[in-house]
């Protein structure tokens, strides 16, 4: 790999030779802050490589989704997303996402309170357990749930004799999705609670507030943006989960198919336009979570910047 210097003139080279970059900024204002150097082709090459790489791998798939969804016109698109099976899948997806959100938000708040505000033995074990689901394959998550709750699993026989079915039913889909998204809210909140310290809460306690008052009037306002981001992230991931849900759902049409599974079914039946139409809805949810992340990061930066100056 070559070196990494560039000058202002290099970057103007880029903006004048790369048509795509130029349309983004008609004023062509290019600022470079590192340091002056020579070798114009290096920075040109590196930036070009990255633009081509990200363009091919990230932007093109995004365009493909919407191009394919509308290929046969708006009527086919509307028919695909208002199809009764699609509507059932939407309802199930929303139900699952909402249940998972409640579970993981309550868990995230509880975990962040005890891990962020207290020092105790075994803290690191709990943190490691919270992070574990990230590195487990979705398919393995499904398998683990089958081993516990399946007909021949540890609890499956007992639960079934009490009329509670988990695998190939909605509870299994909720459990699988909750496992995959388990760390998302907690991981946003724990560092936040830790960074806030306990002084404000202790002051509130000394002034006579009870536990719930401390939480709602002191802690919650401090963590609300991190909480909101965790909630957005968790919802988006819960709606899009595929592998784990695919294993435990049983693909019973109109009953246990979520939106991603519905996309798979349509695609495997060669109904590509319909598959991409439903996929475009999921893509929009994903894009909303990206925008939310960008906005909330900006808010967080603005809020923390003055505090740093005081400290």
């Amino acid at each position: 790999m070559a070196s990494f210097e560039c000058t202002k003139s290099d970057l103007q080279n880029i903006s004048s030779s790369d048509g795509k970059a130029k349309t983004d900024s008609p004023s062509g204002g290019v600022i470079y802050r590192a340091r002056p150097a020579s070798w114009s082709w290096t920075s040109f090459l590196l930036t070009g490589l990255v633009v081509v790489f990200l363009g091919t791998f990230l932007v093109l798939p995004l365009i493909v989704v919407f191009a394919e969804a509308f290929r046969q016109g708006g009527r086919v698109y509307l028919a695909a997303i208002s199809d009764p099976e699609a509507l059932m899948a939407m309802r199930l997806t929303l139900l699952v996402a909402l249940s998972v959100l409640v579970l993981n938000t309550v868990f995230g708040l509880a975990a962040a309170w005890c891990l962020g505000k207290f020092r105790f033995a075994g803290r690191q074990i709990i943190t490691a357990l919270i992070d574990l689901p990230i590195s487990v394959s979705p398919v393995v998550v499904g398998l683990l749930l089958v081993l516990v709750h399946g007909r021949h699993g540890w609890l499956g026989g007992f639960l079934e004799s009490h009329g509670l079915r988990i695998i190939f039913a909605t509870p299994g889909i909720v459990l699988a999705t909750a496992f995959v998204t388990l760390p998302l809210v907690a991981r946003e909140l724990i560092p936040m609670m830790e960074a806030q310290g306990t002084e404000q809460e202790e002051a509130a306690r000394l002034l006579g507030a009870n536990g719930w008052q401390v939480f709602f009037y002191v802690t919650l306002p401090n963590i609300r943006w991190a909480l909101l981001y965790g909630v957005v992230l968790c919802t988006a991931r819960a709606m899009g989960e595929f592998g784990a849900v695919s294993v435990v759902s049983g693909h019973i049409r109109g009953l246990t198919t979520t939106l991603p599974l519905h996309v798979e079914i349509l695609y495997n039946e060669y109904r590509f336009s319909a598959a991409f139409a439903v996929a475009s809805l999921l893509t929009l949810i994903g894009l909303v979570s990206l925008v939310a992340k960008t906005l909330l990061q900006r808010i967080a930066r603005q809020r923390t910047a003055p505090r740093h100056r005081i400290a």
Partner: protein
Amino acid sequence: MNQNGFHRFLRQRSVLPGFGLTLGMTVAYLGVMVLLPFAALIGFLTTGTEGWSALREPRVWAAIRLSLGGALIAASIDAVLGLLTAWVLVRYRFPGRRLLDALVDLPFALPTAVSGIALTTLFAPNGWLGGLLHHFGVQVAFTQLGILVALVFIGVPFVVRAVQPAIEDLDPECEEAAISLGAGRWTTFRRVIFPALWPSVLTGFAMAFARAVGEYGSVIFIAGNMPNRTEIAPLLIVIKLEQYDYHSAAVIATVMLLASLGVLLAVGVLQNWSQPWQKAATA
């Protein structure tokens, strides 16, 4: 032991309430959601031995090799391209940079099934890129190359997001000092920049690898799923489950889990061992 003494043993005293309640909720939820399934897996593996013979099946062995090898290659490509992407996004200013920066998270945000069908359509022989590559005699979709494309796609953000903060923390003065002392650009990169960045590159590599080993949704559409050739290990787990062959499925899953946890652990140990000053700084 009375309750007060027990609490004092567990943690430092605090006037804040709710420790017992929140700890209890956390442990209970983790127990049901995480510990119980893993305990079931271990129990399942230790009760019967017939599952381990699955590893001798050529089809199983081929799938595991494909998943681990593919993940290793994909994570290496991600490490190089991710480092490059992070460098350009942090150090250079060009129109559209913020948009590209935000889009790096797309593989996280897009449901894997959607990524899967989009990549397949893009790289199919009649697709936009697939058609172009077809002219040069390269087929991507429904080959091992297609699997690699999907695995690189989902791994990119791990490396970029791990390396970006490290590049932001780099002091340009160090590079300037190196250059003013006569170091060439390559030497500056090799001796000054890379030593400061490689721990974060390695973290990103390990996370991309762990994700790629188990990736399912974005791969199965583009893979073609031919036994022994383009059949990944997670798909084989699904197939074994459909045949009620729980033992083989559990064994394949264990191999995958050990591989990804092993790499994550190895990287953690390597960093602790090589960067004692960093540990001292954060402690």
